[in-house]
């Protein structure tokens, strides 16, 4: 497969005549005020959206601040006698507690602020490990009992007996990979169609999870309609992203590096706005809590994990069918492959990009909901996923839709399977190392073509 060289030129030279049409010749003055207004609208919208999500400022009965939580796994149930240490960010100890027979611990705090909750490695019973590190840093508001969840893993992840660890990890990795893939398809298509490396894509994932959490927990709506609503809102956020920010920026000829730094600014802005309004802790959805794992012979899965796999598979197959069969899907692939050729053959490139953004937003939101279902909702969940998305997209080949699918699956499985060799809390490091190795060996990825990486 060969690509016309103008593809590279479009990324390479700012003096490229092929983009000149998208730029007002004499600079930008007429647009300046309008863009400012649009930016303000973006900010207002995000603020408004975030304001819908109060930081769960309930439980104001206690006169002081507390940190509490429950230690349990799906197999053993609550675990008694685990030591919990609460420290300030400077490392001064505030208090300790041991979990009671219900696995609960409560530590009184001197006041609001940031605290780190740590469980000493050796206080866990035999066969139980931390699923992602042995400490959490939380921000405690005044008069609030802040829940802290430290994920535990009992090795098998299931009902014991009969399951093989590597098969279990393979299945878990497959599930995780599907989630990454769902979020990454949008990232890859946005890159393919606009050249933008969107560092704010993780925030689209988070907003899906947070919106669904708010509708589900605060609004009392069952999770499935809440997830659908979250997808609609995710598509809306994608649309706003394109219409209010990126399209005007493309029109005034902002360079790709500037656009990339702007996306980082947007990511910071949104991420910390989420933290302000959602809080630093992690929250679970109201539905499908505490499911027991069901055994399938060599591996076990909770029903919600199985449902996530099925939903993700169905959605991804639908996306693939759309890309392959429908007119808009073909147009997307055409624009991603060669934007100028697509435009000259009569495709409305701006409309295609808009659809890509909406689709990317909706898929990322759904990915966020499913991730929140398995790992709970957190303000920075999307950002942490972003690096694995990049790993997946790079592995598959930046800018290709199917590459993002394949690459993300490989990364998900790799990250989970790597815990066979390396400790659980550094498994993401393994994924990031994989990324660097891919860049060394085959930078264009599995399905990418050489000219893209110039």
């Amino acid at each position: 497969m060969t690509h016309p060289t103008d593809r590279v030129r479009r990324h390479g030279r700012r003096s490229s005549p092929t983009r000149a049409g998208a730029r007002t010749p004499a600079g930008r003055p007429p647009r300046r005020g309008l863009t400012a207004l649009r930016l303000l609208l973006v900010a207002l919208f995000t603020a408004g959206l975030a304001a819908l999500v109060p930081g769960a400022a309930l439980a104001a009965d206690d006169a002081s601040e507390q940190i509490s939580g429950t230690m349990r796994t799906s197999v053993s149930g609550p675990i008694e006698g685990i030591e919990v240490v609460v420290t300030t960010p400077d490392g001064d100890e505030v208090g300790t507690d041991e979990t009671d027979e219900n696995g609960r611990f409560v530590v009184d705090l001197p006041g609001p602020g940031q605290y780190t909750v740590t469980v000493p490695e050796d206080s866990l019973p035999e066969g139980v490990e931390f699923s992602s590190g042995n400490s959490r840093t939380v921000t405690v508001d005044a008069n609030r009992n802040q829940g802290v969840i430290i994920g535990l893993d009992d090795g098998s992840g299931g009902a014991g007996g009969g399951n093989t660890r590597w098969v279990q990890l393979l299945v878990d990795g497959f599930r995780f990979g599907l989630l990454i893939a769902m979020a990454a398809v949008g990232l890859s298509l946005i890159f393919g169609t606009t050249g933008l490396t969107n560092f704010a894509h993780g925030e689209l994932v988070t907003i899906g999870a947070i919106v669904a959490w708010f509708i589900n927990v605060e609004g009392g709506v069952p999770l499935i309609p809440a997830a659908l609503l979250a997808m609609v809102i995710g598509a809306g956020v994608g649309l706003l992203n394109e219409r209010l920010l990126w399209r005007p920026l493309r029109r005034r000829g902002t360079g790709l590096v500037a656009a990339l730094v702007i996306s980082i600014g947007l990511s910071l802005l949104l991420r910390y706005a989420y933290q302000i309004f959602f809080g630093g802790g992690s929250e679970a959805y109201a539905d499908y809590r505490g499911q027991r794992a069901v055994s399938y012979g060599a591996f076990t899965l909770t029903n919600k994990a199985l449902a996530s796999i099925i939903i993700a598979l169905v959605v991804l197959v639908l996306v693939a069918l759309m890309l392959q069969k429908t007119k808009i899907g073909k147009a997307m692939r055409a624009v991603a492959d060669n934007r100028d050729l697509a435009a000259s053959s009569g495709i409305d490139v701006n409309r295609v990009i808009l659809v890509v953004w909406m689709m990317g937003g909706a898929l990322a939101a759904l990915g966020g909901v499913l991730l929140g279902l398995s790992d709970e909702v957190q303000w920075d969940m999307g950002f942490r996923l972003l690096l694995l998305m990049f790993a997946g997209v790079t592995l598959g080949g930046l800018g290709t839709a199917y590459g993002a699918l394949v690459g993300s699956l490989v990364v998900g499985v790799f990250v989970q399977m790597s815990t066979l060799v390396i400790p659980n809390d550094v498994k993401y490091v393994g994924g990031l190392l994989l990324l660097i190795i891919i860049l060394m060996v085959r930078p264009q990825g599995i399905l990418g073509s050489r000219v893209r990486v110039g």
Partner: protein
Amino acid sequence: MGEFIDAVAIAVKAGIGFQAVFLALLAIGINMQFGYAGLLNFGQIAFALLGAYGIAISVSQWGLDFWVGVLIGLVAAVVLALLLGLPTLRLRADYLAIATIAAAEGLRLLFRSVSATPVTNGSRGISGFNRQFVELAPWDTGRRYSLLGTFWSGADLWVAAVGWTLVALASLLVWGLVRSPWGRVVKSIREDEDAVRALGKNVYVYKMQALVLGGIFGALGGMIYAVGTGSTTPDQYQNANTFLAYAALILGGAARVLGPVVGAMLMYFIIQFADSGLRSLIENGVIPAGLLSTTDVAQIRFVIIGLGLILLLVFRPQGIFGDRREVMLDAR
């Protein structure tokens, strides 16, 4: 009014304290890489982390001399730059960006992981390694000193003084380098890599040198921060700091020798001023507690940085001192 003056005084202190030195050194490094060579290093904080832990681990864990620790930190930063640069510098700019951001996050996770605890003491971090450095101060570090209406401990003053000396030396070095033939090649790589290659220059080597040099500045920044705070934990080196440094650089003006320095001072001034200003507004009830609480203020700074980055790049990509023609960068 008194509160306003207090807020300004605190902000001025922040603008000349060792935290601003830290930011300035990070930004000088990024200026070398991004401003002059056009390299997108989004993991500058990883170099700072290695610098800080180079000292901390050597002195507190291995019992080595402080200056050996400094050397180890610098060597570690050079090695990281080489490791990151080798695979990515031949590719387009965003590949280096992705690899560096991944390395920064990965290193932080690695340093705070349970398995690294014997060396790095995990998320609790290491302290008690800066005594040898503080003892070098020519004045009594136990006393408090008054400066511009603010009070400083002798140790803080010493760290800041050494830090600003380092910043001055680094700026001088950058000033000399970018006026040398080497600097002209690096700047032309930023403008048109193919043209430089056509002139027979080894673009890859020049880019690598810029990356290593910037990484060394980053490591020095991390060291100043570590000896300033007297302790080091992995979570002090969140990658948001890299973007804080980018914001400072762009505010001051990229590809200008003093851009990062002025940008870093201003940035810390603005952040601290917004911080203490917001706090007093909330405490006085001007901002209702339901809208914002004092614990949210720490996050507001990142919201401000994010918004500031967007607005700067959209409306004034050259910052205060920059030249617009020099910073209209495009990916390559």
